[in-house]
């Protein structure tokens, strides 16, 4: 019965619906975007009515908001936190800095393309995106979760060597020291 494909599909649908309506956010406040999280969460643009809620530690979180530019030192920590999250897990990139480096495109210590190092599910454009844009991006994330397309964790697991190679290119010693991501 449980192995029946349709029942599995039904269970999957319900689970995706639940996941999409209860998303616990780990706001990794880098750069300027952290200031946009506060109005998004609090009573001006109340993100909790959509089921978004702050999570304290990566163990409990579902989605990681990367709010702004990532220096080489920061991206290591971000990768570490992402690997500590428990799948299904999603990544949302804020602003042009995560998309293409933005105004730091030629800085020697700021990465340009976030999705070379982590599987990003949703990008939110702007420098910085205003809370309306953030809400729109989160709604988009909910939609793709509901459609079951938000499979960043599987993507990361499948192309782990490629991601690790990219990370090792900017941070060789750190990646060597970090415990390996074997799940």
């Amino acid at each position, binding site marked *: 019965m449980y192995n029946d494909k349709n029942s599995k599909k039904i269970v999957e649908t319900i689970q995706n619906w639940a996941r999409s309506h209860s998303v616990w956010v780990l706001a990794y406040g880098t750069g300027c975007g952290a200031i946009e999280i506060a109005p998004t969460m609090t009573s001006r643009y109340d993100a909790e009515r959509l089921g978004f809620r702050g999570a304290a530690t990566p163990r409990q979180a579902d989605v990681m908001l990367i709010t702004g530019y990532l220096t080489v030192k920061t991206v290591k920590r971000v990768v*570490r*936190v992402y690997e500590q999250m428990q799948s299904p897990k999603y990544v949302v990139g804020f602003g042009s800095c995560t998309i293409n480096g933005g105004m730091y495109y030629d800085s020697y210590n700021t990465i340009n393309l976030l999705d070379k190092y982590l599987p990003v599910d949703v990008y939110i454009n702007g420098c910085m995106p205003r809370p309306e844009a953030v809400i729109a991006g989160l709604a988009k994330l909910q939609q793709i979760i509901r459609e079951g397309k938000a499979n960043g964790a599987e993507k990361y697991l499948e192309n782990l060597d490629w991601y690790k190679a990219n990370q090792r290119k900017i941070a060789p010693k750190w990646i060597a020291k970090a*415990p390996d991501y074997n*799940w």
Partner: protein
Amino acid sequence: MDMITLILLLFLGGAIVTWLGGKLSPIVGDMLFLVTIIVPAGMFFTGVTVGEVTHLHALGLTLTWGLSPLSYLFSMIVVGLGILLAIYAVPFMKGKQKTGAFYFNFTLSVMAMLGILVSKDWVSFFIFWEIMTWSSYLMVILNGKDVQRVGIKYFIFSAIGAYAMLMAMVVMNSQLGSFLMADTFNNFQHLTVGNQILIPILLLTAFGVKSAMMPLHVWAPDAYSNAPMAYTGLFSGALSKMGIYGMVLVMVTMINQLPEGTLIRDIIAWMGGFTAAAATLWAITQDDGKKLLAWSSVGQMGYIIVGVAIGTPLAMLAALFLVVVHAMFKGSLFMVVGAIEKQTGTTDFREINGLIRKMPWTFISALISVIALAGIPPLAGFVSKWMLYEALIQNNNYILVILLFFASTAGFLYCYKFLHGYFLGQEEPEWAHVKEAPAAMVIPMLLLAIGTFVLGTFPQLLFKPIDSALQYVGYDATGGHLWGQSILFSEWGDIVTLQPILYVVLAVFVFFALFLWFKGTKGTRYVSTKDISTSGELPKEWENLTFKVNFMQPFERTIEPFLKRQIDKYYTAFGNGLEALFEFTRRIYTGNGQTYAIYAILFLALLLLFRVNLFG
């Protein structure tokens, strides 16, 4: 030559033989030691019958020995704990110094405690009391550390107790002309009023010293933590219970005949409650496992003293039950600390981390014993605590019951501190080499822990002997025959049925443990305690993130004003003089029993003069 004498002589001879054999080769010493402890113990369990009395004519006076139901209860503790600790002590003492002295004093202490329990006259009582005291004293200073501070403190307080008991004996003998306990108890009414007040107070002083009642407790924590751990189980489990034994005798036989008895009872009960609370607060602030357990022993003795002092049948039941159970779980916990000290070489919480995966069996016994210590159902500590609270409430000691509730709730703090300090926290490469303790050390502590588990569910195993003991000392039947279905009940009709609760607890626990284990087992993997969510930072190898230093700091900050006043200060001036005197005498004598004998004789002479003037 009857059984009791034979057993005692076997202990005595075995001690000496063990010492000599230990000089030949350590293996012979170990074997002889085990034989010495186990053979007379077996003879005790098989041969001795309750109620038999024997007379011994020696030195012109008659020593009367016999076994009463009450002393049978206590001697069960002594012998059982003695056997287990002897099995434990052999691997514990392996490769240590002064093994011979350890075995000698250990055997001698067991012998002395049995002697105290079987002696029916004050002379032999006093003799065995002294043997017990100085054998334990030699055990306290065995490792040669802090002799100036710890040993002398213990010695001074024991001396005070001994002189008090001696004085009481002399007064009783001179007034009643008999050393027999029974005579002194029965003819208690014939004493003058001054003596009727004086004798119980003197005896209670002696027993209060041994059972570490609050104003007289100063020696206890240092002495407990300074003795070898294999002996401290006996020290705190059985040896301090001798004070309770004497206290029960005095309370029941003498205080009950006094018109002022209730006042004395209340004073003792409040001392006990104060002991429980303050010792708990002190235990919370300790950073060394030995000291923590020592203070917690003082606190548990406080509970027992409260129960004995209240003196209603339920309270006596609770106190005697806690006597046995405390012997079990505290013996197990001291064994745990000894095993950890044996395996890692230290007992400081701030140094050891995460032994749970290295020493799992030690952790299991520690966990069960700590749950029993905290008094959490369905383990044995809860039974005694429940009965104690019921007795207190029904005896209208409302503030005292609040005090004890506070003590037991604060007890959770040091319970958690103990477990977290040794077994939990991050696993350090420093302790990667640690192995589980040898089986001879693990099995006794596991047996004791499981014993607390069994007694928590089937307390009637213990209620029947306690009931007979209470009937012996003159209580009417405390309904020990009614406890068959392991139901706790009080006069108010409040019941706690233990067995169904235990089954429900086990069922729920097993169900959810299995649920957590089997739900998504494939997706769940083990990660080391170094791989924690530290906001993305990688802790370095030398970085230890475990939270150990100032562990209970918020609570300590709260109770600071209480901790400021410690009783030690008030003893300091007095103690300095006594220690100077003792230093002087130590230079004359060799610091063993002879000193003591001379003290006793001098004090006796003084006492006679003194008594003639005072009470003549």
